[in-house]
């Protein structure tokens, strides 16, 4: 048995890094800031590797936990600081600390010339702290600590360039939209407290497991409210609107928080609560539909965006939709599997995009890129791995995880299963298209980059950047790219299904967590079907590649002429279906208008203050009193008090008579 107390170190080390850099960083040299930030994320990553080895050993317990001090305690209810680790947590921990460390490393190069370097790393470490708390938590409330905390870190990092209004707005928007999700999460917890008297996972889930006749009802309500929370954090319809704007943050932040880790928290939460969701087919159905709808909706927007980071942002929303879909059809393992592979290739793609932006001194518009294949070869080759992986072309990671989701959707007992599968397959084609579109536009064809105009400009619209000209990134940035590219290539092999000659190790690994899951019910498939569907997915991915090839490589201009045939539709999609505008017009503006006119002018000025100004008259009639008051004369007050006291005494005397 391993000692468990070192589990505390996993979050506390990054927190120490945050405190050090946050308080002293301004005065420390950059190398020391870097050293602190890297050290305090490298050690937890190593600890997680050790933990993994310990828990994979034969005879090791399926989960370990550690209980610390009491956080909230009232009669009849309490919450402790307590962590627990099972195999699901292990995967999350490995992704968070592993990818997190790589991105820290990359940031040391990427942010090297930025003002506020120390602040950046302090926030990044703060994020790591909250994210590890989130995945280690053994209760809903402690998970919520991490949940809100990563939101805070995200807010601070999106608004890192706080002098830019767009960045400050994006940060605020992210926080508030996430709060809408948290509103659902909180209500779910209130219901849990009401009905279970506890927020500890083991308590709640064992109570549900012990009562097989509990279905729907409150469980559905709780599950749906949790979905609201998950939709906020994992950027699903209708709360996805914050994520594209979050690209205002520095690119490593987009990679770490808004692609690989934080945004997957919603999927993690649903998977963690699978016992609950399994009892509510209704809630699961909602999850599946939201996921599928988000996947195709975001992919369609991603197909026409010009900003390289925006394409990746919508791609992330879309991929998160796949994971939602997986959870919604009860295929939690597939969801977590895709979460993991997505963390690899999407972090890679963002970091690669960052490397491109770095090379072009801050240019993010793909219309001004092109022909970078030979200029930044390491970035090109590593990013190619990411593109192929996400496009779902075997044998790279994305193929296996995405295909598993599609297969599970197809065979799920959900009456819409086949439709969900179809949406997923179409989305897969779109994904392949927009990713190869990005690939061709960035790395192939003529260079459309104006080197003279842009030379000397910093990336992310900020801070100037000594070296001009297109240049490959330093090793500290390409190193993480290479590692992530490797993971994107081989990451899928842990989940190769038997039909393709694999052992699906991840399924066995997660079996103790999801054993009671609905996956048992989805045995309607057959190996022939699975193989057939896999072929369909591959063909669709190749089709996407082919279309992108002909549009953006063989006959550039096809896309433009196609767009000009349906200008209204094209601009609608280009402008993201104007959902932000819709929310503004339907929700925010009316709310503020109503507040100003009805609450402000009518109720507060009219009624509430009218009350007091029954007053207008009263005030004047008390002018005698008021004149006294303005004198500020203490003696007059003593007088008033004495008068009052006299009145009291008189009252008492007569009161006695009155009483009898």
């Amino acid at each position, binding site marked *: 048995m391993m000692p468990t107390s070192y589990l505390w170190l996993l979050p506390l080390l990054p927190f120490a890094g945050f405190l050090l850099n946050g308080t002293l960083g301004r005065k420390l040299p950059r190398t020391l800031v870097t050293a602190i930030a890297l050290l305090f994320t490298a050690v937890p990553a190593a600890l997680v590797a050790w933990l993994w080895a310990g828990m994979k050993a034969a005879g090791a317990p399926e989960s370990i936990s550690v209980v610390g001090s009491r*956080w*909230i*305690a*009232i*009669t*009849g*209810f*309490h919450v402790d600081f307590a962590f627990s680790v099972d195999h699901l947590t292990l995967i999350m921990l490995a992704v968070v600390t592993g990818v997190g460390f790589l991105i820290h490393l990359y940031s040391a190069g990427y942010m090297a010339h930025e003002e506020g370097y120390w602040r950046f790393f302090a926030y990044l470490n703060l994020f790591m702290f909250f994210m590890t708390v989130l995945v280690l938590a053994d209760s809903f*409330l402690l998970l*919520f600590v991490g949940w*809100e905390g990563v939101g805070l870190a995200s807010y601070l990092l999106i608004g890192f360039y*706080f002098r*830019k*209004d767009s960045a*400050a707005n994006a940060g605020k928007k992210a*926080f*508030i939209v996430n*709060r809408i999700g948290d*509103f659902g999460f*909180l209500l779910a917890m*209130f219901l849990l*407290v*009401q*009905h*279970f*008297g*506890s927020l500890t996972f083991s*308590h709640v889930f064992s*109570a549900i497991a012990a*009562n097989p*006749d*509990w*279905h*729907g*009802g*409150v469980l*559905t309500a709780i599950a749906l409210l949790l979905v609201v929370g998950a939709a906020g954090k994992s950027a699903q319809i209708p709360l996805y609107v914050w994520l594209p704007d979050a690209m205002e943050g520095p690119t490593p932040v987009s990679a770490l928080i808004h692609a690989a880790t934080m945004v997957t928290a919603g999927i993690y939460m649903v998977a963690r609560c699978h016992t609950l969701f399994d009892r509510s087919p209704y809630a699961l159905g909602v999850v599946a539909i939201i996921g599928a709808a988000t996947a195709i909706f975001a992919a369609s927007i991603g197909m026409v965006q010009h900003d390289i980071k925006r394409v990746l942002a919508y791609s992330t929303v879309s991929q998160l939709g796949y994971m939602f879909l997986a959870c919604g059809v009860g295929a939690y393992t597939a969801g977590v599997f895709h979460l993991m592979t997505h963390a690899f290739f999407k972090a890679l793609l963002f970091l690669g995009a960052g490397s491109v932006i770095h090379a072009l001194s801050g240019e993010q518009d793909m219309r001004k890129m092109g022909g970078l294949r030979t200029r930044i070869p390491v970035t090109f080759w590593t990013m190619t791995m990411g593109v192929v992986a996400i496009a779902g072309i075997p044998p790279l990671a994305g193929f296996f995880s995405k295909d598993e989701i599609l297969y599970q959707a197809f065979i799920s007992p959900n009456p819409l299963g086949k439709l969900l599968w179809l949406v997923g397959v179409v989305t897969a084609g779109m994904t392949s298209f927009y990713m190869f579109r990005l690939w061709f536009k960035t790395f192939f064809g003529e260079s459309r980059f104006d080197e003279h105009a842009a030379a000397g400009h910093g990336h992310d619209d900020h801070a100037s950047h000594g070296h001009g000209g297109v240049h490959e990134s330093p090793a500290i940035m390409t190193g993480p790219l290479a590692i992530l590219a490797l993971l994107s290539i081989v990451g899928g092999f842990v989940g190769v299904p038997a039909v393709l000659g694999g052992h699906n190790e991840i399924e066995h690994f997660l079996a103790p967590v999801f054993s009671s899951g609905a996956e048992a019910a989805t045995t309607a498939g057959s190996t022939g079907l699975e193989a057939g569907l896999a072929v369909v997915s591959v063909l669709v991915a190749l089709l996407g590649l082919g279309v992108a090839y002909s549009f953006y490589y063989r006959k550039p201009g096809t896309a433009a002429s196609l767009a000009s045939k349906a200008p209204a539709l094209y601009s609608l999609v280009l402008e993201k279906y104007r959902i932000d505008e819709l929310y503004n017009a339907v929700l925010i503006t009316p709310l503020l208008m109503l*507040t*100003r006119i009805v*609450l*402000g002018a009518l109720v*507060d000025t009219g*009624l*509430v*203050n009218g*009350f*007091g100004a029954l*007053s207008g008259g*009263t*005030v004047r009639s*008390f002018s005698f009193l*008021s004149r006294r*008051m*303005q004198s*500020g004369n203490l003696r007059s007050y003593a007088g008033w008090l004495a008068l*009052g006291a006299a009145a*009291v005494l008189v009252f*008492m005397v007569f*009161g*006695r008579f009155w009483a009898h």
Partner: protein
Amino acid sequence: MNFDHSILSIITFIPLAGAVLLALLPDRGKLIPGVALVVTLVTFLATLHLPAHFNYSAPAGSFQFAVDVPWVASPAIHYHLGVDGLSMWLIVLSGLLAPLGVLISWNSIAERKKLFYTLFLLQQVAMMGIFVSLDLFVYYAFWELSLVPMTILIATFGRTENRRRAAIKYFLYAFIPSAVLLVGILWLYVTTGTFDVVQLTGLAAAHGISPNTAALWLVSLSFLGAFAVKVPVFPLHGWLVDAISEAPTAAVMVLVGKLGLYSILRFSFGIFPDQSREIAPLLIALGAIGIVYGALLALVQKDMKKLAAFGTLGHVSVVVLGIFTFTIAGIDGGIYQTINEGLGGAALFMLLGLLYERYGTYDLREFGGLAQQLPWVVTFFVITTLSVVGLPMLNGFVGEFLVFSGAMQSGVTHHVGFTVLATTGVILTAAYMLTMVQKIFYGSLGLKPRTVPPRDLDAREHLLLWPVAVLMLAMGLASPYWMRAIDTVGAAIADDIPSSPATPAVYMVPGSNFPQHAYQDGGQK
């Protein structure tokens, strides 16, 4: 030496002695604020005696550090003071806020210092007196006393021409219901022959105050009315925005919330338990509405102080909602949130005051981009913001979570609706607080920051903000330290037999066979 029987008198009357001393001293240099600082610090240290020697295992309903001396034979007035889990931390909080109030006024009050600090100390006497008195007559004397210095502070030291109107408004709002309260207190005396709160509470628990329920109702309303205006409970907040907007920072810090909320818990709930429970649904509704109302109006303000004033209305409404649920979570959370509001409000108004000292305006439109220039100010401002919006691991979350959770457990009609309504407050509060942060600190430099040279916190200002920030974190991480005293009171008041008629099938999707009550107590302490 054992202070236990004199400590409450010491706490209450040191500031009075200080006030007298200040009245005698010459108004020269920093002498007056200096003496005021010493007096308030000594008082604060004295208040720390209470948690250090508090007996946490004492049964609910017992008062500690008590002193009970007959004062006037007829009418029977006793000098009866005592502290329990409800009042203890409020006393310590008031003790802490007083030196902070002196320090925040250190430079900003340059004229009529003597008047200012004398009144400030008198205000302190009144507050302490209110928290420790267990005799209604003595209590009422302090209650009335609390009106006077505040009114003069607003009228004399208000920041605009509107100050007199604001002061009169405040006075009338507070005075008229207080006069009615006096009638109620006298009726109680006449009926029961005692002013003693402990005796009255005992009688009330045995339904022994009066068989005349109509009269009891009227008298309970006279109590609740006076307290509700003081809190203020929506829609009785007509005085609030003007008073906050005019009053100097030190006065604002002690203006809102705790006196009224404490009084409701001690006197309304203690002496009129049945009436309080009957009227609870109304107050729960007003609390939930007040949360949303305050937050929405805060969202559209251009003036930072008015914004914070409406925000304050929202925060005290959280407490109102919580305590009237009569659940353990609601009352515990409500009391905790009362302390949080005191701390958070103090921090927020101090920070706004510091900005006002620098830039001479509270108009949000004239700010912008200060984060670069004032890194310490923005740090404390963001911490305070996070506490106010209820970020977990800071104090605000603990209180808010318990209150809303209590609201969900309460069996009141439409409790689900009110819980949902109140919980939208977490979205709206984030919206207005983050908007304020953005407008002051982010974006390009605003009008004022362009013309005024930047000046970050000096040592005195650090001294003001560190204790509050540290407390916010500590109270967010180790809440049981504070909660255990509070919980003895909350558990005694609440009627937490899980009696809430939560019939899932009624408001949830069909197909439910979830048991009516799956309440399993997983929380053995």
